[in-house]
């Protein structure tokens, strides 16, 4: 069994135009930097990206927007990105906005074989338009459905050769659910370690979800808002 790839480029060899890709991260925290760079280089177009945010102008998914590789963003919050705004206003980009908790739960449902679930989030709002509502115990809920995603691009702190992953800090965010939800899940890690080095009690993403893994060449880890005491 070999899941280890030499680098991002090799790991994304079969990504096709018009693919749907989930990308982990919250803001610029915990994003798959090397996979994004490789995807820019590979140049696939017509992509649908499922990601909580859309990066900033010169980093993260912003890089894929600049090269106009993205057809549609499915996100909960897309501020902080002038190029994004320009494309959106010019109808060069589709955007679907989803409440953050619903986005997270839909990713989880996808990986957990749950085709649909009910949630209170968005009841009575624009988000509810066209969706089934249903009352349970006197409270209204919306029916939300799982995604269908060709790939998941994941960033973890440490990973072993089998694909077990451990995240650090709030860089965990959407990565674990998305890892379960890709038809092909590709993980980049800061430290690729031998099997047996990670404590089985502390694995955040079990290896079964990870199809490919590689150690990222470098991590810039740009910070959006450096705040200090």
């Amino acid at each position, binding site marked *: 069994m070999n899941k280890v790839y030499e680098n991002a480029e090799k790991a994304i060899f079969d990504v096709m135009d018009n693919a749907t890709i989930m990308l982990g991260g919250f803001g610029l925290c915990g994003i798959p930097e090397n996979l994004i760079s490789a995807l820019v280089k590979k140049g696939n177009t017509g992509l649908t990206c499922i990601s*909580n945010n859309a990066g900033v102008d010169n980093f993260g998914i912003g890089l894929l927007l600049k090269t106009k590789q993205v057809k549609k963003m499915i996100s909960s*919050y897309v501020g902080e990105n002038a190029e994004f705004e320009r494309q959106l206003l010019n109808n060069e980009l589709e955007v679907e906005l989803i*409440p953050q908790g*619903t986005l997270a739960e839909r990713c989880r449902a996808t990986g957990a074989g749950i085709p649909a679930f009910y949630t209170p*989030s968005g*009841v009575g*709002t*624009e988000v509810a338009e066209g969706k089934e509502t249903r009352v349970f115990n006197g409270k209204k809920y919306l029916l939300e459905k799982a995604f269908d995603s060709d790939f998941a691009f994941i960033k973890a702190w440490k990973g072993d050769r089998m694909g077990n992953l451990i995240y650090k800090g709030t860089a965990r*965010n959407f990565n674990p659910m998305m890892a379960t939800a890709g038809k092909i899940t590709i993980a980049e890690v800061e430290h690729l370690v031998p099997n047996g080095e990670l404590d089985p009690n502390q694995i955040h993403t079990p290896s079964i979800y990870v199809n490919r893994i590689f150690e990222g060449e470098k991590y810039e880890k740009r910070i*959006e808002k450096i705040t200090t005491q």
Partner: protein
Amino acid sequence: MSLNKFQIAQRIANELKDGFYVNLGIGIPTLIANYIPKQISVVLQSENGLLGMGPFPSKENVDPDLINAGKETITTLDGSALFNSAESFGMIRGGRIDLTVLGAMEVSQSGDIANWKIPGKMVKGMGGAMDLVASAQNIIVAMMHTNKKGESKLLSQCTLPITGLKCVKKIVTNLAVMEISNNQFLLKERAPGVSIKEIINATEGKVVVPDHVPEMILN
């Protein structure tokens, strides 16, 4: 004299109780962390995956892998826990957050809140706000009583696209503390030196004024 945003935060801090798990939205709510009474202990949730949010780091301790929901660098505390976004919103929807404080563009007298979208302007998204307002048992809105044009933000009905229905329990503004009660704004407290008339004039929605409306106490 109407309150500034720091004083609004200070007033809301009085609502905190020992042992509360609290989610503070971006803007005025974030400031509340600075006024937590010393004798109580509350746990701050950051919905990107942290319970037990600590203060900003020293310069040497800035960690790009540790940010809050406003994307600011932060720290953890003894007893903190980190988790993924599904778990985070699970605890939110599950009703485990004792108090949620949010900013708003409009609140209606039935407790509807609008704080995510202005038609005609670039829409950035609702982030976690719709999940928070749909689930929290105890929501306080922190905002200015009127907008930059001087128009009331406390309305009979929201004019902007709403974030959640009938969810706000209490509103603390620069002028007053109001509670939602029977589809009305029940005036509970006034800012020091602010008259009841001033508050009524600044409120488009229906205000109920009890016999006694004390001035706010800011500890």
